[in-house]
């Protein structure tokens, strides 16, 4: 039985409601999001045009063995005379493709299972939660290795699917929790009273409010997928038929490049993987900030809009501590 004292607005009527996802609200990117976008953009461009601008065929051998970077080979050559730069440029496509496909598939699974479990409740929830818990608990990499073992020699898309099988569970749990909370809100009850179908409520009423989490899950799962794919390839379990950064690392390790000190072979793919991960991480941080203004202004006194705030309702030193303002 609360009254209109602050009417749902925060400190003295200043509107600090979290920004709602809406097509009208795309602000100009700056700072973290700009850096992340540019970085990611670079790699996306490379993925698209890489095979066309690569100076050499990445599989073409030559006599120039283990050459450090030179004018002819900007990033040097491998043990079989292959051009490292060409491998890097061509391999970008497969690496990113695996990452994106795995990210999309895993996130779709997470949304499907998590939101359904959260909304339906009861037996369905119990069952789906048990499923998520099992997949959460299974160690990811060993499972992927086992599954990949069956797919030895299969293409990158199969690798992507295998990775997504292990990567959806965490997002599903988060989405389930969020859905449980949103389900109890008045506007969902209002939709039910209006007569909206369950499908429409889940897809059109609940999901739009979870957009932030979904995007975050997508970005993080993509990073996870890229890293896992690289690990798989490094272990020789990926699809060695196509070039990816992980494959480069596999061959480099195979040829003991680390021992010989042929840094131009293993450092570039490693850095590229790290940079793509960083770009996605920056985008994730930027989206977090946009959807949660508390992080944006980093004020110690910011608080969320609730119906019972007055200035300093939560900020006043507790009586029991006797602290001073």
């Amino acid at each position: 039985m609360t009254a209109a004292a602050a009417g749902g607005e925060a400190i003295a009527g200043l509107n600090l409601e979290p920004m709602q996802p809406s097509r009208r609200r795309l602000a100009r990117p700056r700072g973290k999001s700009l850096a992340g976008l540019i970085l990611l953009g670079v790699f996306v461009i490379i993925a698209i045009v890489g095979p066309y601008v690569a100076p050499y065929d990445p599989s073409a051998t030559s006599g120039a063995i283990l050459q450090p970077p030179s004018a002819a080979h900007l990033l040097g050559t491998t043990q079989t005379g292959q051009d490292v730069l060409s491998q890097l440029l061509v391999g970008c496509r497969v690496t990113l493709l695996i990452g994106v496909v795995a990210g999309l598939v895993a996130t779709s699974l997470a949304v499907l299972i998590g939101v359904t479990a959260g909304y339906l409740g009861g037996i369905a929830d119990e069952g789906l939660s048990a499923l998520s818990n099992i997949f959460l608990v299974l160690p990811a990499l060993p499972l992927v290795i086992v599954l990949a073992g069956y797919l030895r020699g299969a293409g990158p898309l199969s690798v992507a699917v295998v990775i997504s099988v292990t990567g959806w569970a965490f997002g599903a749990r988060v989405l389930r929790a969020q859905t449980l909370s949103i389900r109890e809100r008045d506007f969902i009850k209002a939709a039910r009273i209006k007569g909206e179908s369950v499908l429409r409520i889940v897809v059109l009423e609940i999901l739009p409010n979870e957009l932030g989490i979904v995007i975050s899950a997508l970005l993080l799962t993509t990073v996870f997928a890229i890293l896992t794919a690289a690990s798989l390839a490094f272990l020789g379990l990926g699809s060695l038929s196509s070039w990816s950064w992980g494959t480069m690392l596999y061959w480099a390790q195979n040829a003991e490049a680390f021992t010989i000190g042929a840094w131009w072979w293993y450092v570039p793919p490693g850095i590229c993987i790290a940079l793509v991960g960083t770009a996605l991480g920056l985008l994730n941080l930027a989206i977090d900030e946009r959807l949660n203004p508390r992080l944006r202004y980093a004020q110690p006194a910011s608080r969320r809009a609730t119906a019972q705030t007055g200035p300093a309702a939560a900020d006043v030193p507790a009586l029991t501590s006797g602290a001073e303002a």
Partner: protein
Amino acid sequence: MTPDGLPAPATEARPATEPGPVLEIRDLWVSYNSPAGEVPVVRGVSLTLGRGQLVGLAGESGCGKSTLAHAAARLLPASGHVTSGQVLYWPLASEAVGEPADVLQLTGEQLRQFRWRSLAMVFQSAMNSLNPVLPVGAQITDAIRAHDRTVSRKACRERGAELLDLVGVGAGRLRSYPHELSGGMRQRTMLAMALALNPEIVIMDEPTTALDVVVQREILDEIRALQRRLGFAVLFITHDLSLLLDLADRVAIMYGGLLMEEAPVTALVGEPAHPYTSALLHSFPTVDRQERLVSIGGSPPAASSYPSGCPFHPRCPRALDTCRTKMPAPAVRRAAGSVCSVACWNPMPAAQAVGAVQEGEPGAS
């Protein structure tokens, strides 16, 4: 219920003579830092609290009343600050000396002395501010010792028992945890804590908002009775004007960061001078008064978008051209044998309460 020996509530005559001031807020300006820059929330408010008086401060959302109270008690959050003005406190002893202290200038140790011994506060929804893992007796002890370390723990416990009896919770509850008490009892406990060191001023910010009607009424009666008995002054902040009309000696109305009107409650009800006050008084029914209600079109402005000039002008039926451009300054007038103030370029003519106010759709009668 009536605890031992307390007089029946709310039937004494109002004091005939005005008491001296105990807290005087002079031309206070308070701003908050926001993403849009500095936003003034309280704009030049002057308000005096007389010794032993119960002054009500009413206003709707965004008017700045809570900010005003927190600023006066030096409890603003980090993003808020006082840009100008004074808050003068007249301790009892100094009545002979005549030197008030500016609360805003108090230093660390002085502030600690001031807090809880001179001025105590009961917050909005305070009953949810009790520490859930400590018994209430321990929390009262903490409160006392935080501001007066010389008191022994034993004395604190005795005082706690005395206080709980005083507010009607009962000394037997000293060892109870907050969740074992009802909402009303928790609020009374907060009141007890506030009174622990016999303060001269108690500021209450929406103390009964989340309580049921019956419990609310009991607590208000309790506050009034305690105030009569112990003699402290109360600044009672609420959005619910109807409570103040039965409870307060004087009422101040805030809107858009300004103090629109301040007067003894009989004068406010009988001849409101500000169009906003008049409209507000007729916007809610009571069980006795069921005449036609008026409503004010539009809604109260948020602090980030106060209108220019008088903040009420977009909704005011008596707005003049001046109202759009110049902020009204409080003007003094006399009513009910007392000094009042009203901040309006076109105040209501005396004794014309309802007729001039714009009416919304007709209600049932």
